[in-house]
């Protein structure tokens, strides 16, 4: 087991290097730092000195790979590749283009993101599974048919509609909770209810359908037929056999996204003004703060790979048939 985890972590390294090279190519080779600086300073009548000083402030004033003017190790160290890409491996995200410490910001902002994403995930999971079990219980009847059509309809609505509609209806017309904002501590709840509620509603369509198909796949298997022929009731088969066995794919599907919950949801956070990592990313994209985008790409990749490893571990925990080698 430990060997396996160790192997998986080793396997993650080439992937991280690949991601790192890819982001480096995207952000520094496709457009040179000078061009990025020119964009930030406004395109017309920018002098070379202005570009120079802009780059110097943010540490973009090095050559890409080899610094000929330095000696020793500094030939490699005093380069953009080392400063901006390799340092990500030490979780040194540097400063953003607007001069803020990215690592500090991320530490501050990951908790509000989690405060929305985790409840949304858990509540959504419960509701979706309940609905799915309900439809599976009434499978091949009108209830199931109408339910599926309803799910497809829910899936077809843009996420923006849920957010804008929910904000208008609940915050503006009914005035139950504030439209947007965030507070520390217990006060945060009143700001969190609506985004969580909307995220859950948005997920019902696709979630229910997905779990329904998982249950249906399970219900065709032989052990279900055996259980039924032994005379067990439909409800007992559904809960004791089908549900338990379907939990394996459900659990692994959930575990893989657990680490990514820290990244938060881009649009929900920015609509509700929650100071999480999602709105951080959106703000960075909109103000073209590439240092932050780069850091988020790397962080997202690490979290995703971490999620994959967690998934493998959780497999062995829930399914004794699986042994990791």
């Amino acid at each position, binding site marked *: 087991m430990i060997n396996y985890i160790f192997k998986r972590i080793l396997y993650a390294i*080439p*992937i991280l290097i*690949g*991601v790192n090279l*890819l*982001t480096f190519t*995207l*952000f520094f080779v*496709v*457009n040179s730092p000078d*061009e*990025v600086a*020119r*964009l930030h300073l406004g*395109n017309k009548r920018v002098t070379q000195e202005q570009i120079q000083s802009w780059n110097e402030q943010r540490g973009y004033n090095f050559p890409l790979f080899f610094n000929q003017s330095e000696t020793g190790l500094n030939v490699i160290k005093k380069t953009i590749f080392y400063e901006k890409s390799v340092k990500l491996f030490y979780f040194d995200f540097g400063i953003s283009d607007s001069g803020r410490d990215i690592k500090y910001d991320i530490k501050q902002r990951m908790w509000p993101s989690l405060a929305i994403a985790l409840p949304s995930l858990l509540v959504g999971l419960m509701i979706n599974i309940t609905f799915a079990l309900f439809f599976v219980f009434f*499978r*091949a009847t009108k209830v*199931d048919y109408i339910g599926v059509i309803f799910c*497809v*309809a829910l*899936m*077809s*609505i*843009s*996420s*923006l*509609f849920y957010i*804008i509609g929910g*904000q*208008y209806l609940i915050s503006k017309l009914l005035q139950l909770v504030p439209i947007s904002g965030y507070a520390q501590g217990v006060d945060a709840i009143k700001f969190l209810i609506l985004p969580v509620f909307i995220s859950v509603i948005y997920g019902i369509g696709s979630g229910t359908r997905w779990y329904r*198909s998982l249950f*249906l*796949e399970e219900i*065709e298997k032989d052990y279900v037929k055996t259980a039924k022929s032994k005379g067990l009731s439909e409800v007992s088969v559904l809960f004791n056999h089908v549900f338990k066995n379907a939990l394996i794919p459900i659990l692994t599907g959930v575990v893989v996204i657990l680490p*990514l919950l820290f*990244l938060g949801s*881009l*649009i929900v956070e920015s609509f509700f003004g929650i100071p999480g990592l999602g709105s951080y*990313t*959106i703000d960075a*994209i*909109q103000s*073209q703060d*590439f240092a932050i*985008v*780069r850091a*988020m*790409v790397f962080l*997202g*990749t690490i979290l*995703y*790979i971490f999620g994959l490893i967690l998934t493998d571990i959780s497999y062995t925990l829930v399914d004794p048939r699986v042994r990791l080698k």
Partner: protein
Amino acid sequence: MFVFLLTDIFFYIIIFSIGLYIFYVRKTKDILETWKHVFKSRTGIISIVVLSFFLLIAILDSIHIKEKIYNEQTESFSYESEIKSVLDIILLPTYKNYEKSYSSPFSSNLYSKETIILENNIERRVYPKLLYKGNHNKYASDNTVNILLTFIISLLKYFFVFLIFYLFFYFRIIFKRKNNIFTPFKLNKVFLMTLSIIVILSIFLYELSLQYYVLGTDKVGVDVLYKSIKSIRTGILIGTLTTIVMLPFAIFLGIFAGYIGGFVDDVIQYIYTTLNSIPSVLLIASAILMLQVYMANNPLNFENIYERADLRLFFLCMILGLTSWTGLCRLLRGESMKLREVEYVQASKTFGLNRFSIIVRHIMPNIMHIVIITIVLDFSALVLAEAVLSYVNIGVDPTTYSWGNMINAARLEMSKEPIVWWSLFSAFTFMFILVLFANLFSDVVRDAFDPRSNKNYE
């Protein structure tokens, strides 16, 4: 003069390949049987008709022309700089005039009060009357009666059209071969009903929009209905063009990895795992941000804003395609790995068939069902993604008509008092209709093509 924008050309290629595929299906019996499943289901027929209607609008909107104008001073012909599509020309009477600002659906005056000065210098705050529509009822002065009469007239027009078509088909059936393309439809009741409803609705809407702003006007007084209809092309292009970009990567790399295996497999697997590990929104965002920087620093020589916006749409599809082929590639790799071991492939290998022929003859046809299911599944997700990307400012060009841009522009209108709801409403409704039928269609297609689908319970 015809103008071919970059996306137009690719869109024609897509239409052409759909045509080729239909031709291929008609010749191949087992695939035809599978598709007949789709045509047999009620949902299948309805969604095909609705989607074809959307596709037709997109095609009409993709044939662009420049109009010739005669210059009297130099006595020579020159071309207008404005590019129009055939759809624009058809709809021209409904949208050619702009109002001043917002007006609500079916309203006869502007949405906000303005100060006007009467003859004897008295200022008054009134709702100014609309200039071009809303006050030009054709059939009756009362709005409700007028709308009702318009509906009856469009019904009559529909029956006239229907009669002509009916006669056409009637004679076709009597005089011509039995086995024409419409066999699966067989003038099926559901098909005819859906088609009739769509035709009646479009005639009705057209008649109405000659007299009213059916969905109101936006901030600068443009008909919202017209904007929503123009957005159909953008939505469909993003849904289809992205797939076309993605397919070659997914199919070739997937098959190579699965069938050839070994080192090739390792490399391809590494590439798609790496791409897949980056959260897709962030990858798309970084690629588009870099494209924006590139386009800002290297002002390519565009003839006009249309080509610039068009190029951006094209690049958006390219980027979406380049970042989304990994999922399909992995599926295809697994499937071709399975197929490699199947007896008939092993047999043809022993007969000395080369790799290329095996891939073309045996592997390709047997993975096509996965490809088709993925294409139709992805389509609706891409249409929805466009709106979100435009909201984050990494979507289509702001001058392009798109639902995302409409929503983005209308977001602030929600805080106005009283609220301006119709822009949002129409963008969401149009998007909902397209995505809903695409989803229903993909369900039916998956049921027909996926051997694993829960057929017994559908």
